[in-house]
């Protein structure tokens, strides 16, 4: 018995997060409750006063409720998200997400990598839409360098093509995981199957299925391979009937609707106060999409609709993502029609490594190549924040430069990190089974949450 106790104490020490954890109800302070519900958002003034006096919400005793861990290994937590839930029977009274299990210090690593190498680091944050991470990092570096207006047209449109295809693959993965979380297991296979087709295209273009490091400061790593247009068209032809199948399987199905409609409701005001962006914000009816509202690349030259919901529930978030796949396909078709010829990267000796063939014949090219890959290029002093619309919301990159070839500070505003703050809010007084649906509908990527 003593041995077991000792092991347990050891385990507790290794796994415990101390003060980060959800406290028992008897130790609950008004302040903590306020944090959970996002200040006074869902409370009447009388209720708020009650909490401030420390007398609110004490209808349950510690013995009547149970605090359990959901995760970090629960399959529907999409990685290593750990939720501490206080349950009263099947009802979730309180919830606290505990994160950091995947923290690998990527922002610190970013300070030791040159701007040239930085892409390999940021691409690993949101590993479901790596190209968007690379894009926002590259845009920030280009802004610091002052070359953001000089990127060749073809590079810009290629970036848009990759970004939109990545949005499709990311949302297809959401279709898979959302289906799996709610018990539509065949959906998981379908979603992964369709996503794989997109990833196969990425593999052909970038050489890798994920973590491409393909979009780089100054342009892209390479031009599109021969036959790329046919591959994209094949994807665009393949998807519509499959999306129609999703509609049969999920959208119109009564069980599916019952599981999602009216679950995890959030209003526009609450979502804005919590800093939420992306499909969660749009599900509340607020049409906010950076592609349309603060256009970057050439999004102002393509036609597409911003999909919004009405009720701010899990079903709206599902429907928004499903229809955003269709919108992305619309954009991709326009990109195919418009794709200009030209260079895929800026011809600026400072930023761009010389072409391979030049290195064989020119000493200067070899020196240039060597300097760019060892020292990197220097970036003027200053600080910028650049944001784009990733599949999960606004992904931003804040870079402070001290004039050297490495970022002095590189911070990524990860949409998932902010979005999971809505979990305690949406889960309040829901059922445990709905908790799974809510986590799924937020679609967090833990690589990005923890960085």
């Amino acid at each position, binding site marked *: 018995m003593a041995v077991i106790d000792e092991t347990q104490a050891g385990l507790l020490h290794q796994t415990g997060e101390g*003060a*980060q954890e959800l406290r028992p109800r008897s130790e609950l302070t008004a302040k903590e409750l306020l944090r959970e519900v996002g200040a006074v958002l869902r409370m009447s003034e009388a209720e708020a006063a009650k909490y401030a006096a420390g007398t609110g919400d004490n209808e349950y005793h510690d013995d009547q409720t149970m605090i359990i861990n959901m995760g970090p290994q629960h399959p529907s937590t999409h990685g290593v998200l750990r939720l501490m839930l206080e349950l009263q029977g099947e009802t979730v009274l309180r919830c606290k997400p505990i994160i950091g299990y995947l*923290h690998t210090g990527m922002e610190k690593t970013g300070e030791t990598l040159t701007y040239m190498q930085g892409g390999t680091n940021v691409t690993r944050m949101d590993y479901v839409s790596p190209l968007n991470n690379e894009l926002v990092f590259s845009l920030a570096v280009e802004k610091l360098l002052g070359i953001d207006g000089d990127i060749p047209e073809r590079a810009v449109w290629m970036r848009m093509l990759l970004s939109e295809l990545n949005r499709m693959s990311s949302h297809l993965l959401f279709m898979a995981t959302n289906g799996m979380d709610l018990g539509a297991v065949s959906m998981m296979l379908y979603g992964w199957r369709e996503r794989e087709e997109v990833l196969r295209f990425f593999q052909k273009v970038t050489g890798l299925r994920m973590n491409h490091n393909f979009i780089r400061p100054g342009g892209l790593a390479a031009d599109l391979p021969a036959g790329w247009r046919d591959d994209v068209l094949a994807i665009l032809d393949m998807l519509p009937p499959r999306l129609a199948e999703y509609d049969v399987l999920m959208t119109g199905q009564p069980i599916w609707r019952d599981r999602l409609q009216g679950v995890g409701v959030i209003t526009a005001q609450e979502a804005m106060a919590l*800093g939420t962006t992306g499909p969660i914000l749009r599900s509340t009816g607020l049409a906010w999409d950076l592609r349309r509202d603060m256009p970057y690349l050439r999004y102002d030259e393509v036609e597409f609709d911003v999909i919004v919901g009405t009720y701010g529930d899990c079903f709206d978030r599902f429907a928004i993502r499903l229809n955003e796949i269709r919108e992305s396909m619309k954009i991709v078709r326009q990109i195919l029609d418009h794709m200009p010829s030209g260079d895929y990267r800026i011809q600026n000796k400072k930023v761009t490594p010389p072409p391979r063939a030049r290195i064989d014949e020119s000493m200067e090219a070899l020196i240039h190549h060597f300097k760019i890959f060892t020292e990197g290029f220097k970036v003027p002093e200053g600080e*910028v*924040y650049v944001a784009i619309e990733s599949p999960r919301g606004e992904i931003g990159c804040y870079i402070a430069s*001290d004039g050297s070839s490495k970022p002095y500070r590189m*911070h990524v505003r990860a949409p998932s990190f*902010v979005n999971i703050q809505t979990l305690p809010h949406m889960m309040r007084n829901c059922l445990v089974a709905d908790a799974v649906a809510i986590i799924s509908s937020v679609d967090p990527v833990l690589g990005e949450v923890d960085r």
Partner: protein
Amino acid sequence: MSNTPAPEAAADTSPSAEPAPTLHGHPLTDSFGQPVVHVARSSYVALIKQLANDGYVMAIDLCGVDYLTHPGRTLPEGIAPERFEVVVNLLDIEHRRRLRVRVQIPADDATCPTLFDLHPGTEAMEREAYDMFGISFANHPDPTRILMPEDWDGHPLRKDYEVGVIPVQFSADYVQNAPRAEETSAWQ
């Protein structure tokens, strides 16, 4: 919505010909075309509140910066550089504009008022800034670490926090590069 000029317009005025641009009385600078307002710690929350009334309804991002090894950065007149900085990015949905707020935080008193009461969404970001830089946010409802373990020593993104070394096994300098005692202590 407000009688104050749009920051973009104010930032365009050349500083040599006219007095330096300000926003609500705080120096306004232009960083690669992006408006940045510098504010003293004492009037930080008041300014964010004024800006929220101007339409900057979302605090989209908050992060810390440690300027220990880069003290000579460019700051407007009247703003003395300190070791730490808290950088807040605000978003105005109605007018589709952004604004950055930079606050200097001295090293010997690394505290900053919290924005939680105004923008509850900064809760996790402020915890992250505390975790990574040791900047504590006064009156924050949950001032704990968020990414690092609770018993971790030090604040990793500080410039004087050394990057750990992963020893390469079987190389000649294996012993030499072994992690220092203080680095491993956090794991025990």
